[in-house]
């Protein structure tokens, strides 16, 4: 039996939009981060994939730009309850970046400038599900939204889409990232409302 809050009606969501449980639609683009916004210049930016054997694959800004980009239009779901529909991004698919990487790893720990980390199964980064995004809504990605480049994994809560991404560590065993070790769910599927540990 749900507890009814007397006299509460709410704003019924647009029936054409399918919202994950507990989410509401917003038209702004809110910001969630645990600290100040790191300022990383494109000249200094590097993205490094490290495998379980220690092999490193590195891209600088020029090499990233030389790779074929995709333009996904995706819905975003933040654990702080807002969802934003139909956002336009441009970025390089992780399938392209990981194509020549040899690994037996099943897990990924994503690292950011500023020290942020987040973990997810490697398969959630593959098969057209994830990008290193560098443009948003036709413009260079603003620093407060993760520029120069951020991970974009829209099928999971947005904290998995690490801003200011600096690299991905491929691992045989799972290791909790920043929010995951502060009580948030290890996987974070918005459709199963996996906000906090145990959900």
């Amino acid at each position, binding site marked *: 039996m*749900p*507890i*009814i*809050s*007397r*006299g*509460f*009606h*709410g*704003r*019924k969501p647009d029936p054409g939009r399918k919202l994950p449980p*507990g989410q*509401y639609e*917003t038209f*702004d*683009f*809110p*910001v*969630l*981060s*645990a*600290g*100040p*916004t*790191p300022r990383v210049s494109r000249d200094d930016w590097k993205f490094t994939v490290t495998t379980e054997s220690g092999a490193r694959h590195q891209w600088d800004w020029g090499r990233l730009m030389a790779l074929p980009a995709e333009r996904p239009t995706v819905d975003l779901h933040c654990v*702080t*309850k*807002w969802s934003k529909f139909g956002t336009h991004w441009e970025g390089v698919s992780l399938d392209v970046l990981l194509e020549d990487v040899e690994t037996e790893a099943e897990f990924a720990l994503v690292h950011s400038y*500023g*020290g*942020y*980390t987040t973990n997810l199964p490697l398969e959630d980064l593959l098969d057209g599900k994830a990008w290193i995004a560098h443009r948003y809504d036709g413009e260079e990605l603003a620093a*407060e939204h993760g520029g120069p480049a951020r991970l974009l994994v829209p099928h999971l809560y947005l904290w998995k889409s690490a801003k200011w991404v600096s690299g991905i560590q491929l691992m045989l065993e799972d290791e*909790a*990232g*920043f*929010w995951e*070790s*502060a*009580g948030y769910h290890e996987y974070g599927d918005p459709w199963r409302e996996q*906000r*906090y*540990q*145990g*959900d």
Partner: protein
Amino acid sequence: MARTAVSGRLATRLRWQAAALIERREESPTAQTLAFDLPGWAGHLPGQHVDVRLTAEDGYSTQRSYSIASAPDADRVELTVQRVPDGEVSPYLADDLMVGDAVEIRGPVGGWFVWRPEQLEPVLLIAGGSGVVPLMSMIRVRGMIGSRVPFRLLYSVRDPADRLYGPELDRGAPGLDTTWVYTRGTPDDWARPAGRLTPDDLVRWGWPADFEPTCYVCGPTGFVEAAAGMLVALGHHPDRIRTERFGPSGG
């Protein structure tokens, strides 16, 4: 940015719990403190928030996060809700929810934007508008446990009517310094002209970076972006600046 240890209590499932409103208090013309009865509440760390779920007669439900304003107190949690014009949830909580009515609450949530009493370094609290709520919980816990850790609060509000917890902050506490920053209108005879928070305010009323304070910055996104950026520019290490952003809009 250090990683926080996994707290055992958080590892268990966070349950939704019915919570009846037992008291409401006006903090300002646009904000109300709501005290809820939460039988068996296991306590919280100051800075944590709860999720509030409202369900309508027809079964429609929605959730929002609200910081805990109070210090831990058996079976009782206080939230302070600032009414956002045309908001779905905050006007209902601030105006319509009556004593005896119920909402659902789960938490406490958040293991990063917290002050732990075992921290001994000086603390700098920087609040914009309703961003003072989790910081007030830190101030109250400091008082409750008789901590001597020096706290400084810089609190930015539009004008004197917007102050939350004004009387309690004006009464103050030993080792707690509060500086009010008015952005639009000041009280009479106020030395600082109205205007947004500046680096100079932080130099005058904050802690020097050399003291290595932990800084907690909370408020609307634009305010937090600006204040955290100034702290970094003044030499505070980003790892010692913790932020919580409440609202999508700038301000």
